């Protein structure tokens, strides 16, 4: 045994033994912290179907059970904004959404809600994207999101957003998972996990009038997702977020998964050829301490399947 390795092991053992003598509350925290040391901060995958990449990626992060405990209520927030077909890439892949829902249920989640305040008429977006049927078959529940009565006013300490109405499912759930599709966005620059959360609020126009970039980052004061899964299988690289022409879509066959929403957004922005710090809302969120924008400081697991 090398000297260095011996020291490392003794230290670990010693710490482990020490934990046993800690008060009960602290013990769990330290054990958890120790365990999380071994997981990557971010998993980047490429070269397989969205659902296969998710299976592999979430395993690398320790399984969905790390984020979803038995009996918990989960909200999965995909992008269901548009009544456009699958290859239009304006919405999250239905197969991926279904797989995320299934993983949560398998981990013992009591209920898995899927919601999005869609931009086009909700019934059409749900049908056209294929997500409505996919969620149903996976055992999830689409939480009605088309009316103001499903949203509740909350106060938050954002830079410009001091109050907004957020969907009731977010207030009643334990876990929030953002499952965006990566795409170019004419106004916000990019649309990734953070921009995706704009679909959790009722008054979108309020964001635009108060300052879009600040509001997108400010939402994290209200609720920060426990996990972000960025679908970069088909990506709208221009004329986003709706796209429309096949020429606007690139097949990247990639996926980014991270518990850190800022890191997920930063890595995904790079996939679009954008420097994370040049996207104001990613920079604002990092400055507010919501996550790591500097990708060199992250432990990244890169998987080509």
């Amino acid at each position, binding site marked *: 045994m090398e000297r260095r390795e011996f020291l490392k092991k003794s230290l670990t053992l010693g710490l482990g033994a020490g934990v046993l003598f800690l008060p009960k509350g602290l013990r769990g925290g330290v054990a958890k912290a120790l365990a999380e040391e071994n997981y990557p901060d971010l998993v*980047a995958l*490429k*070269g397989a179907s969205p659902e296969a990449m998710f299976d592999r990626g979430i395993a690398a992060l320790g399984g969905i059970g790390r984020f979803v405990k038995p009996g918990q209520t989960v909200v999965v927030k995909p992008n269901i904004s548009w*009544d456009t077909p699958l290859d239009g890439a304006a919405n999250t892949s239905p197969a991926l959404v279904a797989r995320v829902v299934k993983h949560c249920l398998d981990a013992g989640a009591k209920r898995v809600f899927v919601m999005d305040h869609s*931009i*086009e*008429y909700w*019934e*059409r977006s749900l*049908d*056209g994207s294929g997500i409505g049927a996919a969620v149903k078959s996976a055992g999830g529940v689409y939480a009605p999101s088309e009316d103001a009565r499903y949203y509740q006013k909350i106060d938050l300490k954002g830079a410009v957003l001091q109050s907004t109405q957020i969907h009731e499912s977010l207030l009643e759930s334990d876990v929030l998972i953002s499952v965006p599709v990566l795409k*170019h*966005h*004419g*106004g*916000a*620059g990019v649309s990734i996990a953070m921009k995706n959360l704009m679909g959790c609020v009722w008054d*979108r*126009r*309020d964001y*635009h*009038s108060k*300052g*879009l*970039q600040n509001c997108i980052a400010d939402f994290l004061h209200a609720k920060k997702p426990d996990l972000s899964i960025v679908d*970069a299988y088909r*990506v709208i*690289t*221009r*004329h*986003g*977020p*709706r796209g*429309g*022409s096949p*020429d*606007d879509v*690139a097949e*990247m066959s*990639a996926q980014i998964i991270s518990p850190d929403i800022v890191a997920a957004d*930063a*890595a995904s922005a*790079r*996939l*679009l*050829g954008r420097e994370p710090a*040049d996207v*104001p809302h990613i920079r604002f969120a990092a400055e507010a301490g919501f996550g790591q924008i500097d*990708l060199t400081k992250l432990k*990244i697991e*890169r998987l*080509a399947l």
Partner: protein
Amino acid sequence: MLSWCRLSVALGILALFLRTFTSSLQKWSALRSALADTQFTGALMSGGLFSVVALTVLIVSALLGRWYCSLLCPLGTLQEVLRRAGARLGRKQGKYLSPWRLRYVVPALAGLGIFFALPPLFGVMDPISNFGRGVRGAYILAVEGAAAAPPVWAATGMFAVVLAFAALRGRRFCDWCPVGTLLGLFARVAPAGMNMNRDVCVGCGNCERACPMNCVDASNKKLDRDRCILCLSCAGSCAVGALDYGVRAPESTERRALFLKGFDLLAYGAGLAYLGSPVARGWRRRLVRAGGRENSPRNTGPETTFLDSVMPPGAPNAGHFLAHCIGCQACVAACPTGIIRTDRTSRPELDYTRGYCQYNCTECSHVCPAHALRPFPDIDEKRRTRIALSNLTRARCVVITRGESCGACAEVCPTHALRMEPLNDAPSLTAPVFDSTYCIGCGGCLNVCPADPKAFAVTGVTPQVRTPGMRPPDPEDEGAPALPMTAGDDFPF
């Protein structure tokens, strides 16, 4: 027994009408369309005499009597429901009402609407329009309360009067109904109808009290054949079986009566032939022009004329739209985003403050029974059709006025008529650039614009012309270069 069967069918149809006229969910769209298509006036407007539905209703009425009124008319059945409710609440017993001598005046006036091809005039008394306006009006009042527009109050008020009369006096509207009156003229010569056997009748008056049309006269042992809608209530109420439906015994074999019957038939045929003739179409065009909707203070060319309101998609031009729309509100009920509202003459117009016209949606043009909105042959045609024209005032845009990122308008613009392009003096910001060639006037940009006042104005156009469709990508557009991800196993981080 038979009377209960009739009532059950009628109530079922009424229930479906009420459901589909108060919900825009997609699962109802096929049913709503089918129901609207059963209605006589819509059919008459859509195809005149060549409409299968209109022709069938007329032939059935001329042979078998007014079954249309007792089975298919939702307004008629609704009046019967109210009448029954009124009976529970202590309404006076029904009594024979002799036909008023001037009772043809109102239907005839309404009929002038058809003669001159002015549907709004006709629509005032048209049964399906009254039903649609009333139900939608009540629905909107329930949702919006006092904030509802005056036309909504007016329509609901008229509906309330009709229903109040029904609760107190039975199907009184039907005596003034132009459709019922027309079908009554046909029923007068029908070989089948209700028969009252004078020898069996004991004159108890049950039938007279049971008749929702108040057209049975028990003391004189007769009934008015043209007013009878064949609801069979009288037969159901008769203890001795003196009333039944079947081939009618001739009331009179006098030559004069036979001559009148022949004259009737001839007159009806002539009237209907007129409706299908080019003369009626000519009137239609002239009156629409005189109606002044096509005035064009902002006319920009020989093709497009601006309107002061936006017609729903599928109206080929204002003339056609005005000449066909009876104001039945089927499109209002069908619109998933609820942006179709009614103007003073109960015709639909789009209100972009409530939402915008969905790119892939053809519910309104699909449901229109009068073909005032023509169905699109395919979804691509709808996506290309310009119903209005937007106009961008860049000086009001929040990107320009406040230096904030936005892009809400370009986000919803389905044809890329609006695109975000980098600002010259602040390249990190993108501002909307508008190319009207591709604008279809869906109103999305206006609806979502956060600026106050809005940076967009949208104006209705006639005719609704075909645009080139989706604006093709510009090779120099942002984001077009090859992506770092496309080659190799490396990630760009």
